[in-house]
Each structure stands twice: as structure tokens, then as C-alpha cells.
């Protein structure tokens, strides 16, 4: 496919081709995709000019699922097959869903894994697959607009998402055939969208109230580095709760019980949402229930009444703001700007209370619906390599503490919340019984002290501990969190070196085999099969490797002896000669060889660049 080549202004002739990248805001209520074109960030619209894709998927018998506006329109008539707000179900088990505080109309069925599935006319589907449908729609939109395949995407998640929810989001992208370069926290994305062009040095608060989640982040922007100081929020609080509060009021007024038919409840929710939106500009809103959904009723609500209904919800967000400031060790008067993100920040009471709390007029110049996807697009453009290397850098944190279960069902924190990632921490434990040969490691996430109050992420057993007296064996458990905020845990017995390692697949996550089979299913209609995909992935990885070794050789050959350079060049040309063939195992083998002979070179280059970075720094000091 022909690609339209556009180079960034100010960049001149790009050293490599412009890669296509996009930022995706996968929201509870709405989703968007944005990209950087000609140096300008823009949200992409569909054929009918709409930017916003309602995050609603409707499954049909013998027909592909509908996504977005069409699905939303069918929600009232076909509630069981039309799934909205699936983000709330991501990374959740059936027990969690019961505690969501929402009555969901869907029929849940337990699957093979612990992940719940929803029964529809098109079969049982998991939240990951439902989200993947939304992502596929956005992928198609981006690729048809940009006229080529996306190299990679950045997908945003609420800062407050735990490990299971992040992993589920990444799995959904894999199922949709997208390469995720980074999961980016939504408030950080918003800060990027605002911060870069306004060269805003100082401390900023990002208040993000979306349809289903609330996030607050405190960031420091200094010389192009965005450092997240703290983040907090509530993963089950959002504009939907405002609608629900108003819907409950309407139901009480109209004499509707909460065990009414699903489609009637949906109708009331939809009416409540419309009234809420109207109250953004108007002092009162008329409410009219349609008789065809059960009860005919007419009434009116004033903004003042509405404010009373949602005041407690708004206060909950401010409690989280206070905690985030405490974690960042700053006071409200140090905050230079407050950025408002998410459609729910249009509610006047929210703006008023947030303004009072920070004693600042909140920033609302970028469309709160688009701002997250725009920041994500910017980060995607940087990560894919379309922008000069010394542009913005993001230093993010983990939102919730990670810990281990210890005696008495208590949680011992290993990595406290708001620690900058990537991070690795180790903790040593001893055996507590004579002759103990195995130890179960239970990994938890959350701030509370009791195991039952935290979220269980994974449980695994280290076996083969040498039998000794209690306290005789020493087990070191290491937590590693990567730049996406995803966790790997390993355990090692120190006297023997017996090791056990798990990539923390959340208890409610998918097995890799399940992802693969979903991927296969989703491609059964496409031209390429899994084999072709493997080949292409091997080729992409090989090209990437060749490119990076080429760059390394031309920049830093001086770090190598002649012999070393010859060895590398030989492996390099070997890979170049096979990488365009269709033998994926030959490509992988040659890649592995090149990888191996350049490992030491890469380490030397890294050390040299560290020295150089600080040398420049010292000169600046003088």
C-alpha cells in the first residue's frame, strides 16, 4: 500500500520513514483515536464526521457485532446483547462484579478461566473480547484515515487501574491485533496534551472525572520531563454515578421500583443522562418518561436539586485529591494549574468545587472528551520514533501498593504506591516450620492491611526448599514493575538457588493460549493466518534489530575492537540476507545470533551515554 510521506516541520529529511502511530482513549462511556499529522495532534473522525465512538458493543446472531452509535441506539430494545461500560468489568471476577454496586442486565456465565463471560446470541464473550471489538473499530478508522497499517499504539488507562485491569487492557489490544507501545495513565496523557505546547514549568493537578472512573494526578513538569509525583482516585466513581443518582430520584418521583424491567431502567438512565447534560447550561431541565417503556411521567429538576443529589459524589473526589497531595508532599498553594479532563467535568458543581478546593480557575481549553486521546497520540508519536529524542520524557508511578501475604493474613507492602517505575524491590522471608520444603507466595495490591481487603493478583508456590529448622531457609521474593506498570514476581531460595518466577497473570486474566485462540478466531475471516503473522512479527523484530545495530555501528564503532566489529558485521549481514525470506525460524535464529554478539556492545553504549549525559550536565553547572 502506498504511503503518503510527510516529514515533521523542523525535522528536515527524516532519517527513517514516518511511522504511523495512534493514541487510543478506551473509555467507559466513549472511546476515541487520535494521531499526529504534520506536527499537529488531531482526533480522527468516522465516515459521518463523529469523533466519539460510544463504548457499546451489540452482538447479533449470524452477523458481525455492531460497535458505537448503532449499538447504543439498540441498547433499549436489545439490552441482553448490547454491552455498555465494559471497562468496568475489565480484569474483574464474577465476585467483584457483584460488588460493583450496579445491577447489570447481562447474563454472566463462568468460563474455564476465572474470567466471567456474558451470554449473548452470538455466544459467550469475555470483557476482553468486547473491548477488542471497540479497539478493532478504532484501528480500522485510523488505518483507513491514515492509509496504512499502524506500527504501534498508546492506549490510556485510568491511573487507578490495578495490575489485573491493565493486563486485561493489553490483552484486548492483542486480540484486536494492535501493538501496544505503552499503556499510559489517562491524567498523564491529558497533561501531555496541555503541557507540551504551553511550556508549563511547575506543579500541575490533573482532575479526571470520566464516565466510570475518577483519577487525580499531581505532576511536576521541568525541562521537558514530566514526573508524576502521585496519583489517586476511585476506579468505580464517575459520571454514570451522577446519572444513576438522578435516575433514582426520577424513579422515586415516578413510583418505579428498582426491580423494573431492564429496558425501562435503561430508558430512565438515558433520560437522566440527557437531563444532566442539559443542566450544564440550563438552571432546570424537564424530564419526560415515555409510556412505551412502562410508566409515563413528567417532571422537572432544578440545578440546585441536582447538585444536592451529586454533592456527596463530588466530595468523594476531593478526598482523593487531598490524599494525592499528601503523597506528593505538596500543599494546594504549590499547584500552578488544575487541568480538567473527562466529560463529567462539564458538570458546573464539579468545576465550582474543584476551583474552590485548589483556589484556582480550572483549565478547560482543550475539549475534555478529546484531550486524553490527543495526549496519547503525542506520546505514541514520540515512542514510535517520529520526534527528536530529547523531547518530552514521562516518568510515571504505580498507583497502588504491591505486597505479599504474611502470617495472620496480613499484607506486607513491598513496593509502596506512587513509586516511580520501572522499579524492582526484593524482600527476604524465612520458613516458619521445621522441615518446610515449599512456600506459597500470594501477591496482593492495595493499601489496606488485611489480605481480604486487598486485591489478589497471583498465587504461586516455590518448591524444592531444602528441609531445615524453622527460619533456616532464606527466600528472596523480587517484584519487578515495568514502564507499563505491569508486574513480574520471582522467588528464589538463597542457599540453594532454587528459583520460581511468574509473570503475574492476574487471577481473573486470560491464559496466553486463550489470547492466541481469540486472535485466531478474530482472524479467521482475514486473509492472513497465524503463520503469516508469526513470520511478519519475526521480520519486524529483525528489521528493528538491524536498524539499531546499523545506527550503533555508525555512531559508536570506536567502542569495539576490530575483532568484535568483524564478528558483529558478519552476524549483521547474515541476518540481512535472510530477513526478507519467508523462513521465520531462520530469521529468528539469525536474530538471536546478532542479539548475542551485540549484547556487550549495547551495554557499553548505554554506559557511555550515561557518562556523556552527566558530563554535559556538569558543564551546564559551571
Amino acid at each position, binding site marked *: 500500500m502506498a504511503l503518503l510521506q510527510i516529514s515533521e516541520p523542523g525535522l528536515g529529511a527524516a532519517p527513517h520513514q514516518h511511522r504511523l502511530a495512534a493514541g487510543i482513549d478506551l473509555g467507559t462511556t466513549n472511546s476515541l483515536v487520535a494521531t499526529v499529522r504534520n506536527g499537529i495532534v488531531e482526533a480522527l473522525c468516522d465516515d459521518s464526521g463523529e469523533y466519539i465512538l460510544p463504548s457499546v458493543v451489540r452482538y447479533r446472531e449470524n452477523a458481525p457485532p455492531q460497535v458505537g452509535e448503532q449499538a447504543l441506539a439498540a441498547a433499549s430494545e436489545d439490552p441482553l446483547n448490547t454491552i455498555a461500560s465494559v471497562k468496568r468489568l475489565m480484569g474483574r471476577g464474577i465476585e467483584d462484579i457483584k460488588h460493583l454496586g450496579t445491577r447489570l442486565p447481562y447474563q454472566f456465565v463462568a468460563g474455564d478461566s476465572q474470567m466471567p463471560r456474558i451470554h449473548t446470541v452470538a455466544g459467550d464473550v469475555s470483557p476482553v473480547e468486547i473491548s477488542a471489538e471497540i479497539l478493532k473499530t478504532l484501528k480500522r478508522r485510523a488505518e483507513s484515515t491514515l492509509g496504512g497499517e499502524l506500527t504501534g499504539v498508546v492506549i490510556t488507562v485510568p491511573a487507578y487501574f490495578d495490575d489485573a485491569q491493565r493486563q486485561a487492557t493489553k490483552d484486548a489490544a492483542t486480540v484486536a491485533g494492535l501493538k501496544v507501545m505503552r499503556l499510559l495513565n489517562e491524567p498523564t496523557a491529558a497533561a501531555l496534551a496541555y503541557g507540551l505546547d504551553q511550556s508549563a514549568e511547575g506543579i500541575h493537578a490533573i482532575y479526571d472525572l470520566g464516565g466510570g472512573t475518577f483519577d487525580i494526578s499531581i505532576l511536576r513538569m521541568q525541562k521537558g520531563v514530566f514526573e508524576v509525583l502521585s496519583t489517586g482516585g476511585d476506579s468505580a466513581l464517575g459520571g454514570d454515578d451522577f446519572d444513576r443518582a438522578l435516575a433514582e430520584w426520577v424513579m422515586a418521583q415516578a413510583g418505579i421500583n428498582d426491580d423494573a424491567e431492564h429496558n425501562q431502567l435503561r430508558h430512565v438512565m438515558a433520560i437522566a443522562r440527557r437531563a444532566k447534560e442539559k443542566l450544564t447550561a440550563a438552571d432546570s431541565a424537564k424530564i419526560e418518561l415515555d409510556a412505551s417503556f412502562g410508566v409515563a411521567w413528567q417532571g422537572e429538576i432544578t440545578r440546585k436539586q441536582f447538585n444536592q443529589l451529586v454533592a456527596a459524589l463530588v466530595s468523594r473526589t476531593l478526598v482523593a485529591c487531598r490524599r494525592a497531595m499528601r503523597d506528593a508532599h505538596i500543599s494546594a498553594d504549590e499547584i500552578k494549574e488544575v487541568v480538567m479532563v473527562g466529560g463529567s467535568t462539564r458538570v458546573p458543581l464539579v468545576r465550582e468545587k474543584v476551583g474552590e478546593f485548589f483556589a484556582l480557575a480550572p483549565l478547560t481549553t482543550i475539549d475534555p472528551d478529546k484531550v486524553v486521546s490527543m495526549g496519547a497520540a503525542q506520546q505514541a508519536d514520540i515512542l514510535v520514533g517520529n520526534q527528536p529524542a530529547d523531547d518530552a520524557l514521562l*516518568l510515571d508511578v504505580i498507583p497502588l501498593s504491591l505486597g505479599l501475604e504474611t502470617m495472620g493474613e496480613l499484607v506486607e507492602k513491598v513496593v509502596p504506591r506512587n513509586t516511580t*517505575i*520501572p522499579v524492582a524491590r526484593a*524482600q527476604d522471608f524465612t520458613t516458619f516450620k521445621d522441615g518446610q520444603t515449599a512456600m506459597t507466595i500470594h501477591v496482593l495490591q492495595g493499601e489496606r492491611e488485611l489480605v481480604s481487603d486487598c486485591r489478589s493478583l497471583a498465587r504461586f508456590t516455590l518448591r524444592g526448599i531444602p528441609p531445615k529448622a524453622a527460619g533456616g531457609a532464606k527466600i528472596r521474593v523480587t517484584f519487578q514493575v515495568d514502564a507499563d506498570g505491569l508486574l513480574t514476581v520471582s522467588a528464589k531460595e538463597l542457599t540453594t538457588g532454587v528459583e520460581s518466577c511468574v509473570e503475574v497473570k492476574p487471577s481473573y486474566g486470560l491464559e496466553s493460549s486463550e489470547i492466541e485462540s481469540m486472535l485466531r478466531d478474530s482472524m479467521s475471516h482475514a486473509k492472513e493466518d497465524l503463520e503469516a503473522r508469526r513470520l511478519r512479527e519475526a521480520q519486524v523484530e529483525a528489521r528493528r534489530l538491524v536498524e*539499531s545495530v546499523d545506527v550503533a555501528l555508525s555512531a559508536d564503532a570506536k567502542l569495539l575492537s576490530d575483532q568484535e566489529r568483524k564478528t558483529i558485521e558478519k552476524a549483521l549481514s547474515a541476518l540481512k540476507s535472510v530477513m526478507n525470506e519467508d523462513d521465520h525460524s531462520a530469521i529468528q535464529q539469525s536474530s538471536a545470533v546478532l542479539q548475542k554478539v551485540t549484547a556487550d556492545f549495547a551495554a557499553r553504549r548505554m554506559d557511555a551515554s550515561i557518562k556523556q549525559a552527566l558530563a554535559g550536565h556538569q558543564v551546564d553547572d559551571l
Partner: protein
Amino acid sequence: MNDLPHTDNYFELLQLPVQYAIDKSRLSSAYRELQRVVHPDRFVNASAHERCLAQQKATLVNDAYRILRDDLSRAQHLLQLNQVECQPHTLSDPEFLMAQMQLREELEMIAASKDLDQLGALFSHVQQQQQACKDRLQAIFSAKDGFQPACDEVTKLQFLNKLYEEAESLEERLT
């Protein structure tokens, strides 16, 4: 608890003088400069090995920054570098321990009385004591004739930090 087995000298990594007194703005700018070159975001399109290397280095740099930024862990790091082993739970300063008990009682009284002014006074009292500890650490480390006395100050600072945290969570509950 949080130390990976390593012999890294974090001062050297960030090219700062190996001493207790620290220039925090220089520390944070050195940190930013290093992350600019080692952060995994700089290696998204690099080979798998380089990505892994970047993750390790960025982890190390984050750790160095965290340890050096904090007045307590920086002292602990200096003791480690000088191979000074502190014996746990051997603080023999009855006066200090008595003062700690009094402060704790005071905190409990405030929890009952919900007197925020009193809590504010407690905060500044603890802060003063923390500062005194840090000043003594500074004196011990710059005198360079035996770092063993720093162990006591480290233990005291741990006490005080814990108390401060408890006072903070009380404040959170009360406001």
C-alpha cells in the same frame, strides 16, 4: 528491606560527591538527565536486549534517586558504602525513648480531642527533632572519624518518621 543485592554506589552513578549533605536541585537534574538516556521509552524500537538493558538501568536510576533524595535512606546508604553494620534495636538513649513515649501519648490524646491546633504543634515539634537528627548525621559524616554513632541517629530518625506518618494519617482522618 528494599535493598537488592548490589554494591552500586548511587552517588557515583549520579556523579555527586559521596557525602551526607546533598544539593537536591543538582540531584534531581542529574536524575532527569540520566533518565533521558536510559528510560525504556527511549528504546521502544530497539532490540529486545536493549529494551531489557534500558529497563534495568532505569530501575537502578530510579532507585538511586529515591535513596539519595530521602535524608534517612541516604544516611543508610552511606553507612552501607562504608561497611558499617548497625545492630538492630540497640538504642540506649533513655531520654529520647521517654520523649518518644510522651509524643505518642500526646498523639493519642489528640485522636480523642480532635484538636487540630494541638496536632499542628505536634507536627512542628517532631519536625524540629527530625532536623536535629539530620544535623547530627551531617556532623558525624563530615567529621569522618568513625561512622558508628550514625547508627543511633538513623534509629532515632526512623522512630520520628514513623510518628510523623501516624500524625499525618490522623490528620487525614480528622479533616
